[in-house]
């Protein structure tokens, strides 16, 4: 649980992890995103909420989709956005990471959107930034990716009525997945009836059930009767270090095909945080099929990120007014 992502009055000051956030706050994020998604369909896709604010996208790890949607979200809120792709080898020491941050603070930034390869990096940065700067975690190591989880919840809410009635299965590499950890926390907080994770033991973390999920090693059993199927990306490097024998065997056992999808409820939706590996974790016919909402997820990412950015910067200025 992050100790410092909420203000004294319980507003979002940073957005680092889903863990520890209460259900009404998650609902507020989704409601806010719902308002913003209207803007996206207008001719002029901009609101002046963050005019005059400067947002730095600090990507210590490569990303196209996430960085782009954060950038679009910031621009639609009328903020100034600066993208920095920082080579991690140049900042492998904490000291220079802090030096980088302090230099950017000196340029009067208001928000850092951070992606980093190490778990806990966003938390570390939030602990060390100046009090007027908000930090949004755009993915830290294997730990958390809270905006991705929220856009997934938003997508589920658009398609399904009531979270407690749902059965959700997450399939694949949970061990290395920050997305899965954040999704599981969000689904639990929203009261989802049953969360299942499906995968071979080598890519499930120790004591997986302590995350509040049911563990399945058999895809057919795990998909039986679920409302939502979330497929995770399988990194090719997992074949090294003897985690898995081959992409082919993985696809045979854990890839989502039309046939396997039939085991889920007929109206089940299929999600994927992207980028997808066709023929590794998911068949093209499923990814492009009628039950897939994968592209919708991308679209919703903009509204969710607008919501989170406006909420954190709003809480930030409130806090400063109180203190002033």
């Amino acid at each position, binding site marked *: *649980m*992050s*100790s410092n992502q909420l203000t004294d009055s319980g507003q979002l000051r940073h957005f680092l992890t889903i*863990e520890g956030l209460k259900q009404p706050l998650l609902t507020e994020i989704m409601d806010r995103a719902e308002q913003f998604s209207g803007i996206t369909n207008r001719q002029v896709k901009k609101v002046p909420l963050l005019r005059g604010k400067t947002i730095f996208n600090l990507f210590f790890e490569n990303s196209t989709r996430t960085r782009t949607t954060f950038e679009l979200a910031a621009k639609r809120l009328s903020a100034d956005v600066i993208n920095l792709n920082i080579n991690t080898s140049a900042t*492998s*020491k*904490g*000291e220079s*990471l*802090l030096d980088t941050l302090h230099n950017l603070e000196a340029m009067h930034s208001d928000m850092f959107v951070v992606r*980093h390869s*190490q*778990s*806990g*990096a966003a*938390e*570390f940065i939030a602990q060390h930034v100046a009090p007027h700067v908000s930090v949004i975690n755009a993915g*830290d*190591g*294997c*730990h*958390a990716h809270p905006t991705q989880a929220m856009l997934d919840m938003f997508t589920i809410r658009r398609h399904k009525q009531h979270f407690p009635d749902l059965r959700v299965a997450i399939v694949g590499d949970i061990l290395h997945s*920050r997305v899965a*950890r954040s999704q599981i926390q969000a689904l639990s907080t929203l009261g989802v009836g049953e969360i299942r994770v499906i995968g071979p033991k080598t890519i499930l*973390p*120790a*004591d*997986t059930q*302590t*995350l509040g999920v049911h563990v399945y090693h058999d895809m057919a059993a795990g998909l039986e009767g679920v409302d939502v199927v979330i497929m995770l990306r399988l990194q090719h490097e997992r074949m090294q270090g003897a985690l898995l024998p081959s992409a082919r065997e993985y696809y045979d056992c854990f890839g989502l095909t039309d046939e396997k999808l039939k085991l889920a409820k007929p109206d089940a939706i299929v999600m994927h945080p992207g980028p997808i590996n066709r023929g590794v974790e998911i068949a093209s016919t499923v990814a492009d099929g009628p039950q897939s909402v994968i592209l919708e997820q991308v679209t919703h990412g903009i509204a969710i990120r607008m919501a989170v950015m406006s909420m954190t910067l709003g809480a930030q200025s409130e806090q400063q007014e109180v203190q002033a």
Partner: protein
Amino acid sequence: MKLRITNGRVIDPASQLDGQHDILISGGNIVAITEHHDDFTADQTIDASGLIVCPGLVDLSVRLREPGQEHTATIDSETRAAVAGGITSLAIPPDTDPVIDTPAVIELIEDRAKKAGRAMVHTIGALTQDLKGEFLAEMAALKAAGSVGMSNSLSPIKNSIIQRRAMEYAATLDLTVFINAFDPWLQDKGCVHEGTVSTRLGLQGIPETAETIAVSRDLLLIEQTGVRAHFHNISTARAVKMIQDAQSRGLAVTADVSAHHLHLCEHDLGNYDSQSHVLPPLRSIRDREQLQQGLRDGILTAVSSNHQPLDADAKLGPFSETTAGISGLETLLPLTMKLVDDDEISLNQAIACLTHQPADILGIEAGRLTIGGQADICIFNPNAQNECQPNNFISAGKNSPFAGWLFNSEVSHTLFAGNIVFEK
């Protein structure tokens, strides 16, 4: 100089002494432990009313950072910290730079320690040259130069035939082999205990088997080679059990536990607190309980600081990028005494684990109050009520997860060879 320590409660587990006595010191040695009525005229008297007087503490694993990392800490700075913690004898592992695999390095360290003149610094020599696990170090030469034992420190010997031969050769020379037991492949780049916390925080875990597989292999080799061996810094319940079994089979095996593993567990990592980043990692609550039990049962016979001073930058970064280690010299006594306050172990056990028991593991004279023996003495207040403030440590390393902890025990005086080397 003639010195009298009066009115203190003198506890020396080695001689089963516990009572109100005066200790008389002359010429650097203890000349008598008596009732108050004697005709000894002291130049100086220490009034130890309400205080406990015990042998100077003995610490099995201390990194002084010299030679090699003098920018972090030095023999001078760390022996100063040692005596502030009541420690007068300490053993340093061979992973200095250069490695302790030649007599010259031992001479350098002993020379610097002698100049500092506060505590006895014992060296543990390298088992293999440059700790590479390929060629045996010249153990006879290292022994002759003063090494109290041999170790490959934090570079476990992967090749079992080399490990076996190193043990055989050490046994030939009647040397104790000190082992930090972990399987390097299972440990890999892990930085926390593999369990609920590693799963929640998304950090690479180190499974229990990283320790137990290494202990298991080494116990079998110890049995085969007949070497006398000591396991440093045991962290798992299962390893305690394995060592107990080995001891009951009659193997010459001892083990210690670090003070922090007796108090902290994986949950103390909180929100990526890098001060709790240590190797072996803080393990489960059950492991911690069994380590305390192992101490009570006399399977683990020493508590060590596993002192690793670090500069501030080493702890500043995302968790897995920070350096593992805790600055432990100044919390060794209060943490061990806290177990007495918590009724986990007896006062006698606590002091034994810090004095003659570790001294016996090192095969040195220290850790006891002997008439005619060197006057290495620790005097401490067991009812001090102190808040731990790492920034006020004398050690150059302020890296400690115990900031804000309330300690009851505080060292008031430390004597080394009859000289007062620390006074509160």
